[in-house]
Structure formats: structure tokens, C-alpha cells
């Protein structure tokens, strides 16, 4: 009986899908942000992984220099309705960092997982760099990490920081600086449909760079769980639905995408061969959108 049971566990369905793992590299510029010294008015630049927006990575049939968008972009299917964006029909995808709700309406669509170690780390970023101090839902400025922790625990009825997805701790941040001064993070594309010759392609949503503003085009503040605590009436916000299918609709000047020649092609014969090889795919996202306009 035990032998039969153990044999049952070895059944291979030969599914045409695989978990794809890799390392994504983004340029130092994606972590660089201008900062104004409020006392002197002087502007300088800081390099900080907290400035890195969500990195969206997909598996596509191919990557081309898009005539419509003017930058590298996955191939798209037919345009059926001119009022709707074309669809890339991706095979799968994932992210390195996603939007998470950090307990206050002030932070809707602004906080990405894998970027902040704890509450104080987030509050410092907003007060010292963004110059947009966090306020709670009553409009009071939040100056203490403990106060913010209390707000989160009360709202979500939790008892530990690990239950807040956006808190990474000192060892859980997504991106680390490499020898070239760029930044790297691990990524996984779970259960991706495999097709020999498919390409991986990704992009970084860079936040707005002006003082007092930290906005992302990939987040929809009208989606996500609703907050109806007392007189509150707002949504937590979450990533837009079509980031993989219609990325060109959300990519703007200042964002970074994978260049046509840099998109890795997966050439294993089938999903079984890919699973057996279990490669660590290297994906480089270094093409600055908008740079083509400067040529």
C-alpha cells in the first residue's frame, strides 16, 4: 500500500507550464531621486532603493521596437476596437515588488513591497526625501513608527509586523546594489505557459520625481479592498489589471524597459526540459523611455 502511495507521488503530468526564476537588473538611475534641502533650497541626488517602483516582468512571444509606443515593447495582437489598447497575449508574468496598502489613505497606491524595512523607514522616506509627511486618516501628521504600527494593528486586527506585506525587515528588501552600482533582485514567474523561443521582458514604473509627489501610473486607487471604517470611504488601491496585457498604456517617459536585444529568449525544447534545467534567467531593464526623443 505504501509503495503504491509513493508511486502515486511520482506521476509527472508533463504540464506545459513552468516556474521561471531569475535575477532582474535595473540601472542606478531608477533608484536615484532629486532631493531639495528645505533649509538652503539646494537640490542634490540620492540613491535609494525606496525610490524603485514595481518591476513588472512578463513572458511574451517576442519583443519588438514598437512603432506605436516608440520604445521596445512585446508584440501585440490585432487591434479590434481602436478605443481599446492592443493586447500582447502574454504567456505569464510576475513582479519584483507590488503595491500594498500601508494603513493610511495618504499612502494609497504609493507603497511597494520589498522597499521598506519598517514603519520608521517609511515615515523617514516621506518626511525627509519626498517632503510629504504621512498623515493618518484623521489628518494628523504621523511622526512615530510605533503610532503607525498601532494604526496598522488596529485596522487589520493583527499582532505582528510580519503580517504587513510591505514591511520587509532588514533582510527582506528586494533590491541590492551590485558591483556595477546597479540594482538586482530575484524574481519568479509562477506557472508560466511555456513556448520554445519565448522572450522575457520587463519594465520599471518610475515614480513622479517632483517634491511632495510620489505617484505611480501602474496603480489604480479605485481598485482593491474598501475602507469603510467609521466615516472612511476609499479603496486601498492595487496594480492595474492589464499591466502584462497592455503595458504600453502605462509606460511613460522616465520609465525603464528591457531593450529588444536584451530580452532573454528561452530556447529549451519544452517545459519538461526547462524544469529540468531550472535556469536562473538574467533580465536587464536599462532602456530609458523617452531617450529615443533626444536622439
Amino acid at each position: 500500500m505504501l509503495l503504491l502511495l509513493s508511486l502515486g507521488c511520482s506521476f509527472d503530468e508533463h504540464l506545459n507550464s513552468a516556474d521561471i526564476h531569475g535575477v532582474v537588473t535595473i540601472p542606478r538611475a531608477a533608484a536615484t531621486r532629486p532631493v531639495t534641502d528645505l533649509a538652503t533650497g539646494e537640490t542634490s541626488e540620492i540613491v535609494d532603493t525606496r525610490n524603485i517602483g514595481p518591476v513588472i516582468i512578463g513572458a511574451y512571444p517576442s519583443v519588438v521596437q514598437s512603432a506605436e509606443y516608440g520604445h521596445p515593447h512585446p508584440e501585440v495582437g490585432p487591434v479590434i476596437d481602436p478605443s481599446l489598447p492592443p493586447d500582447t497575449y502574454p504567456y505569464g508574468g510576475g513582479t519584483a515588488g507590488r503595491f500594498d496598502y500601508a494603513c493610511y489613505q495618504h499612502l494609497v497606491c504609493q507603497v511597494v513591497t520589498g522597499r521598506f524595512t519598517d514603519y520608521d523607514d517609511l515615515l523617514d522616506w516621506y518626511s525627509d526625501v519626498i517632503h510629504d509627511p504621512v498623515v493618518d486618516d484623521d489628518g494628523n501628521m504621523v511622526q512615530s513608527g510605533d503610532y503607525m504600527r498601532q494604526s496598522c494593528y488596529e485596522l487589520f486586527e493583527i499582532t505582528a509586523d510580519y503580517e504587513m506585506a510591505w514591511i520587509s525587515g532588514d533582510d527582506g528588501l528586494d533590491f541590492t546594489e551590485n558591483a556595477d552600482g546597479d540594482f538586482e533582485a530575484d524574481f519568479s514567474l509562477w506557472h508560466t505557459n511555456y513556448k520554445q523561443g519565448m522572450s522575457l521582458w520587463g519594465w520599471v514604473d518610475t515614480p513622479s520625481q517632483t517634491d511632495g509627489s510620489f505617484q505611480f501610473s501602474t496603480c489604480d486607487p479605485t481598485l482593491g479592498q474598501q475602507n469603510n471604517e467609521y466615516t472612511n470611504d476609499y479603496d486601498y488601491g492595487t496594480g492595474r489589471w492589464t499591466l502584462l496585457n497592455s503595458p504600453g498604456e502605462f509606460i511613460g517617459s522616465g520609465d525603464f524597459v528591457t531593450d529588444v536585444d536584451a530580452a532573454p529568449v528561452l530556447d529549451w525544447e519544452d517545459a519538461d526540459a526547462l524544469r529540468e534545467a531550472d535556469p536562473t534567467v538574467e533580465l536587464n531593464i536599462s532602456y530609458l523611455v523617452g531617450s529615443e526623443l533626444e536622439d
Partner: protein
Amino acid sequence: MNARIPLLILGVGALTACDRSGLQYVPDSIDGFPGIVHLGELTPVPEDDRENHLDYARYETLGPSPSGTQGGATATVKGTGGTLCVVVDPEAISWNQSVAVQGANKAYTWPDNAIDDGDIDMEIGLAGYYNGTPGVEIGDFEQVYEDSLGTETAIAYNECTMLDVNGREGAHAGRGAPEYCAIDTSLHPDRSYMVLLESFMVPLEDFKLSYAVNVYDLGDATTASGCLDMLDSYKPSNAGAGAAELLLPQESDAEGFADFEVAYAYGLHSMYCGCAADPTPENALCEKLEKAEGAGGGIAVDYGAATIDILKGNGNSAYTIPLVFQNQCGDYDEDAFDHVGSTVPTDEEEEGE
């Protein structure tokens, strides 16, 4: 012996259960009313001839389709290079009766006649993408897209996308309700578009689904709002969302239906039914009807002439319609309001809840 009695009861029960076949809901074909039909080409209403738009409308009737097959109508319309608004209005009018113990909506306490309504779901796409056979077999606009690696994906080339309450595509209007779509033909001027009108449901009372369909040339209006703006341009003053029924009136052959559509446009339909069933001032629903807003000037009920006047704000009559119990009104179930002690909730009961 006693143990066999339940078995005997069960056996008799099982036998009697077999006396209901449901075949009454599977009708035979009806001569003169095919279940699948091609209407030919529709002519869009020019922008400068909107006042005569009914001259362009098609009023048709579908019969039941052969068992196990999808029924419906198809028609073509040429792309103008601008935007077209296609409207279909199936018979008749449908609403849900309000039977709430508390807070019953007085406009909906009289039930609908649920077996006189049909439902048509509309899709529109380039005729070249239509995979049915007009007049023979109903299809859809699904075709296969093959990407550069040869992966095939089925795509619905239907351009008539309606949004649900959550803003997602794929919705349709319910039974008896008009559907409309704006189609941007700028990429394919002079090409034929196929209008597919699927008979989602035929009325159970006669299995004949009457409907009206019309196409309006919106010129270069934007697809997002042009169709709705066009519909609103036909909307009578102070009418509610039900005014869409008035665009293509009398799509049902039931006598007096056009009058009932007017009552529906002003949200009076349920009170109208209740009052018409017993047109006396003592009838609580007549009393409620007289308190309705109308076209801004209230409602005047003439019990002698059996008419109601829907009044404008200046006191003039916008519509005079006969107060006659019609086929659209359902059978009232007295028991439905036993819990509130009267045939309809009183104002006090409604307000106090």
C-alpha cells in the same frame, strides 16, 4: 410491515413526479415566424433626419428556434467612417416586484407579467469575422489569433462591449430592456458590419419575440458618449432611465403597449397596473399614483374617463394615456403583503421603516 409504508409513499411520490415533462417550454416552430432570420442591410438614420428615425427602424418578430439551437436575427450595416449607434428593443417591459417586509418600494409593489417578456443580446463586429451563417445558423465573432510563435488564442471580435456594474465588459441588458452600442467604423469605412441579435429568451406566453432595431449615424461623435447622448436627445422632460423604451415604441404587438411604455418611462408602471385593476380613489395604488411626480407637474387621474394625465411643471399635459389593465401587468398575489396588513404598504408604513 410498517417499514414498507415509507417505501410505498416514496414509490408513489416518484411515480407522480414523472407527470411533469417541461415540454411546454420546448415549443415547435411557428409558421411565419422563423427562429433564425437574416434581415438584410440596415440603413443608418442620417444625422439630419433624426425626427423621422422610425422610418428607418425595423420592427420584426422571431419565433422559437429548433430545439437545442441558438435562435436570433442578423443584419448588416455599412461602416460610414464615423460612429454608428445600434439600438435593439425587445418586447416588452420587465421589473421585479418589491415584496420587502420593510421599505417596499411603492413603484414596484404590483408584479410584472413575467411570461410576456423576451430578451435579446446584441453583438456587433466586422461581417468578415462572423462565423455563423446568416439566416441558417447563429454564430459569434470568435476567431483564432496566431502569435509569432504559432500559439493560437481565440479572440472575440465583437465590438459591442457593454459594461457591468463593476465596469467589466461582457454585460447585457436584462429581459425586455433595450441594448445599445456605439461602433467606431473609422478603421473600416464602407465595410459591412454584422449586427447579431441573439434571442436569449422568447416570451413563454406565445414563443414569439417581437423587437425593434435601428441604427443611428452619429457622425464623428466619440464612441464613449455619443450613443448615450443620442438616446438622451429623445428623452422626454423629467423621464427616468426607463425612457430608453420610448425610442423605439410599441415593439410588442400588445394593445396599448406604447401607452404603457410612457408610464414606464416615468416610473409609474407598477402603480398604473395596481390602479387600473381597481380604478377608484379608495385604491391605495391610485392614491400613490396621484402623488407621483410625473413630468414635473404631478399626475391627474380621471376615473370617469379612465385616463391619467402626466403633467408638466406648467400644468399642461405631457401625455394622456388610458388607464386600462394591460397584458404587461401581472397577477397580484394578495398574500404577498399579508405581513403589512394591506394590499400595498401605506405611506406611514414605508416612511416609518
